[in-house]
């Protein structure tokens, strides 16, 4: 049967919830047919948020088969962690999800702190919370900008990067670098906030809600954006939970599950914020959830600025904590501690634990097994991007190929984290 005689595959109506395929849940097996074409999306396609390869079978313009292939930026993070002492793992952690770098550090540092049972001073907890929220804004801005680029809207990208720069300026002010800061450490944070940080941060908090208003004007009321995003990639709450979605991807389906709220870490139990949820679980809701979450993050940052207590920013436990830099010049003991911690590392108790934080992408977990030696015996990261990319196939099934781009974008996957 030639193409002309054959009716093209029907497209599923908008708002149809994705169904888990009968075979492998993350793969749609293409039907047999001689006029179907199978094409490679990626690994270097500009709209795949990194190096994601999708093997797509098309019937005309409609996706009828999809298999995702990941691993193109696999760099063996977990194996590498096993070769490094615990301290040397800290600068390594943020390289996984290079957009939500601070959340990765928090998960790793938090897991080790829980293992060694070190008490983190309150001021350090508040500072960490502040930066976790700044990082959330950073990540959501990148998401918002790039999702616009995928629909062909370039201007929002520049607006988002402008604000992202302000966030990174704040990071630079405190940590000295713009990304991958190695700021949280076992027992606290590297250094106290510098002079002038509060003023700059407050200026940012004052400015940012207006900017988010602008983005919402650009997105929410934009007819093209609504037409392109609404109703596609719909997933209902039960399917989303079964597929392991977390973070904004899950909350867009109406499940108010946010680790900051249900399993508070740092000082989130002392802060007021709303958990933003969507209704339909479609790409538009995911976009809206993330955008509106930025308002909440600004609120959280303001509360942190208001109530950061005074005090030390590092625990004083020289078994695990690097001595302050200035002591190295005057104290022989500090120099020895420093030398021992840097060369040999510390020995945590043997044991295993799982520690999860709410990264901008969802539940970022760190499963740590210690055998009592100075290096982790096994470390495994639960990467939310890795999990959420599994639903690409079921969401894109029998949608147009243009929707596939929007769906992949709306899931906000970062391949560095998915491949690790």
């Amino acid at each position, binding site marked *: 049967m030639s193409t002309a005689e054959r009716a093209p595959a029907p497209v599923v109506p908008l708002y149809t919830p994705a169904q888990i395929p009968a075979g492998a849940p993350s793969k749609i097996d293409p039907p047999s047919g001689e006029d179907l074409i199978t094409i490679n999306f990626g690994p270097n396609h500009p709209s795949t948020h990194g190096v994601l390869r999708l093997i797509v079978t098309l019937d005309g313009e409609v996706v009828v088969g999809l298999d995702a292939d*990941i691993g193109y930026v696999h760099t063996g993070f977990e194996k590498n962690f096993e070769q490094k002492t615990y301290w040397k793992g800290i600068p390594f952690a943020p390289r996984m999800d290079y957009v939500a770098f601070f959340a990765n550090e928090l998960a790793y540092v938090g897991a080790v702190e829980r293992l060694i049972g070190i008490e983190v001073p309150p001021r350090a907890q508040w500072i960490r919370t502040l930066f976790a929220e700044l990082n959330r804004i950073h990540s959501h801005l990148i998401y918002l900008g790039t999702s616009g680029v995928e629909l062909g809207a370039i201007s929002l990208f520049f607006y988002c990067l402008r604000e992202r720069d302000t966030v990174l300026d704040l990071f630079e002010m405190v940590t000295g670098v713009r990304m991958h800061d190695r700021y949280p450490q076992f027992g606290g944070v590297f250094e106290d906030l510098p002079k002038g940080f509060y003023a700059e941060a407050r200026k940012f908090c004052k400015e940012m809600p207006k900017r988010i208003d602008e983005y919402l004007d650009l997105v929410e009321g934009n007819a093209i954006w609504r037409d392109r995003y609404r109703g596609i990639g719909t997933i209902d709450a039960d399917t989303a939970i079964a597929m392991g979605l977390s973070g904004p991807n899950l909350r867009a389906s109406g499940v108010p599950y946010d680790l900051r709220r249900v399993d508070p870490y740092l000082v989130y139990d002392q802060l007021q914020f709303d958990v933003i949820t969507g209704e339909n679980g479609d790409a538009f809701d995911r976009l809206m959830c993330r955008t509106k979450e930025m308002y909440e993050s600004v609120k959280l940052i303001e509360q942190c600025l208001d109530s950061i207590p005074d005090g030390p920013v590092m625990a004083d436990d020289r078994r695990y904590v690097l001595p302050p830099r200035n002591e190295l010049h005057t104290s022989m003991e500090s120099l020895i501690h420093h030398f021992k911690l840097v060369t040999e590392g510390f020995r945590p108790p043997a044991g295993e634990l799982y520690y999860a934080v709410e990264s901008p992408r969802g539940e970022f977990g760190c499963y740590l097994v210690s055998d009592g030696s100075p290096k*982790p015996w096994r470390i495994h990261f639960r990467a939310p991007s890795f999990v959420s990319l599994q639903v690409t196939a079921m969401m894109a099934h029998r949608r147009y190929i243009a929707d596939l781009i929007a769906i992949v974008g709306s899931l906000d996957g970062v391949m560095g984290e998915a491949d690790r």
Partner: protein
Amino acid sequence: MNAAELAEALERAVPGAVVAHADGIDMPTLTVTGEHLLAVCRELRDAHGRNFLSAVSAVDNLGYGEAVAGYYGTERGRDINLTGSWGAPVTAELPSTRFKVVYHLARVGDGPPDRVRVQVLLEDGDSVPSVVGVWPTADWHEREQYDLMGIEFTGHPNLRRLIMPSDWAGHPLRKDYPIGGEPVQFTDDV
């Protein structure tokens, strides 16, 4: 519900499944037999509300207690990493099997996650039933562990390498996988 209560409830539903339980540093930990794994997982999901599979992890215990974490020396050496050269001995309880597969479960809803860890102990070459039928999200998790650790998940609908190239030899996260000096495995015919 602590580990003992959970183990007791599971013992009533699936007799003989839970062989050990501990409260753990962070969450109740249940060690179950491979043959009962699916029944235990279904019971935890349906009767105990653990509807969310956070992660599937596999641990290789080759050399645990003998070598420093991260490397089990082959004849190529790295003696400097042997425990003795680092001073203090390892105090951990030695694991009884080479591998274990660990499932982290949670309850997703309004309340706290009430996490539970379920683990299955395996020897090299043993397989473990796939939980894709219980939590579809296990698909890639299990493929990842199959790929990097070489654990066979029986009943998985699509058990292929996920992270490494499909023609890769060996499983990199195993402790006997060489760390340096191995020839680079790349083929020209992609």
